[in-house]
């Protein structure tokens, strides 16, 4: 157990900010800290040098190795997450800026999203409705927001073709958001009069009551196209298999790996993980939004490099310190 000059320096800053006295205890479990702190500190110049050295180490070495004291103001154990956030934000902003300037950004094809318009067209030809389920999670789930974003695009296509759309939801907050998005889509397509407020409807708050209702709808109305986009749980296969039995073309998208096999078995197209979040940007074809996707790809590339380095280090038995860098991330 040691005390760090850097932490006293940091404490001074925080004390000025918060007016509180913060006592910190730091536990070191790797050599860089131990080496520097073991150096004599009689000379003031050396003290400054030590502070500088520790500042550099703060940026380069695992802060997660420092135990979190309950009276600390800042979570230093999450410093690595902060670095990732800064890199991620910078990448997204830089690529968005490039996209704004007109630089062409390549985006790979996502067949499931290309098929959405085709599937709605099929429903129009058959004179049957389109069923869209934005998952069964609350609006505070990012998957639900992704689902609602895609719903806006689907609603524009159904408004254009004047195809009936049915959107059952499980939570009232999702109901409010869904109604707003669908109404806006109909207005933007100049079909405000065709908008039915009951297009998006609250069905049930219970997971399986919701499923029973939607399955009943599928068997009675036989929608030509079923689109599942959002967070799904045990009901995923109940919905997708019933849709399959009803003869509907089905497109699904979820970020839950445990539900993906069910959708893959029962649907024509399945968006996996990140494709769900990319859908709104992909469908919009707006360069600014595509810039965000490219930023995400850049960070993914960095992570792949980090993974390969980690695999090599761990394989040769030198990876313990390296692995701790990613603890809080």
């Amino acid at each position, binding site marked *: 157990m040691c005390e760090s000059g850097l932490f006293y320096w940091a404490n001074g800053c925080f004390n000025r900010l918060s007016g509180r006295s913060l006592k910190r205890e730091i536990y070191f479990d790797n050599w860089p800290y131990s080496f520097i702190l073991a150096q004599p500190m009689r000379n003031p110049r050396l003290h400054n040098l030590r502070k500088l050295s520790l500042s550099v180490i703060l940026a380069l070495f695992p802060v997660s190795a420092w135990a979190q004291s*309950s*009276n*600390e*103001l800042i*979570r230093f154990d*999450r410093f690595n997450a*902060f670095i990732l956030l800064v890199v*991620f*934000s910078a990448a*997204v902003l830089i690529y*968005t800026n490039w996209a704004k300037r007109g630089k062409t950004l390549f985006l790979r094809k996502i067949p499931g999203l290309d098929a959405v318009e085709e599937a709605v067209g099929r429903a129009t030809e058959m004179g049957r409705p389109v069923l869209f389920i934005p998952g069964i999670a609350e609006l*505070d789930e*990012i998957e639900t*927001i*992704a689902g*609602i*974003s895609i719903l*806006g*695009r689907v*609603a524009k296509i159904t408004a254009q073709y004047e195809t009936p759309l049915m959107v059952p939801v499980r*939570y*009232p*907050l999702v*109901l*409010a958001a869904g109604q*707003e*998005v*669908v109404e*806006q889509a109909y207005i933007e397509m100049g079909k405000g009069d065709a908008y039915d407020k*009951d297009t998006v*409807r*609250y069905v*049930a*708050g219970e*997971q*399986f*009551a919701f499923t*029973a209702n939607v399955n009943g709808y599928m068997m*009675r109305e036989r929608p030509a196209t079923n689109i599942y986009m959002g967070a799904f749980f*045990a009901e995923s*296969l109940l919905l997708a*298999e019933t849709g399959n039995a009803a003869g509907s073309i089905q497109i699904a998208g979820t*970020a839950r*790996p445990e539900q993906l096999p069910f959708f*893959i*078995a029962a649907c024509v197209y399945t968006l*996996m*993980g*990140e494709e769900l*979040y*990319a859908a*709104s*940007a992909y469908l*919009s074809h707006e360069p*600014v*939004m595509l*810039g*965000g996707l490219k930023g*995400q790809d850049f960070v*993914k590339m960095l992570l792949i490099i980090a993974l390969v380095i980690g695999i090599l280090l761990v394989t040769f038995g030198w990876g313990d310190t390296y692995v701790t860098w990613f603890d809080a991330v």
Partner: protein
Amino acid sequence: MRTQVPVVVAFLTGFALLVSFFFNENTWIGQISSEIKIWVTIVGGFTLLLGVVSITRVNWAAVKGRKEGWGYKVVTLISIFAMAIPAVFPSTWSPLFGRAEGSIYDWLFVYLDSPMMATMFATLAFYIASAAYRAFRARTPESTILLLTATAVMLWRVPMGEAFLNLFPGNIPEFLNTYIMNGANMAVQRGIIIGAALGAASMSLRIILGIERTYMGKG
């Protein structure tokens, strides 16, 4: 105004949550996150009324128009109010009110709602069988590999199957556990999870920065 205000609210809320993540939960900044979650619950409580209005309007319209299956809609409407109204009144008025044991709400929940939910969940077994039949048809080399792997894993997952696999030399159950489940399966799952996490973070950033407005029906 209808666009600007939600974007500003999304930015402020998202930024506050981000900052809060890096502060200790004991500090007021660190507590912003839990405070916002409480607000979401409160707002969600108010919007519950929207849900009740929606479900009543849709079902009432079907009953009024004598649409196909309108009788079921009547049952739905009766069920909603039979469950909700006695639960709203205080149990001091009558032991049948409120949500305590022995109340109407509790009786309906324990003897009707829960068994029906369990029944729906139980039907999943049949759906899995039909989906597995379709997924495991050996039409291509890839689907044949999937079929063989899935058969081995399913065998290993049941005690009798594991005993059967142990009859063969080479410790097949250990092989399946190490290389299939903890190797290939976990690697693929983690790849999807990392991709999904980056996608979620990217979408969150686009929303916080106001780049993405599709969740409001804009763009």
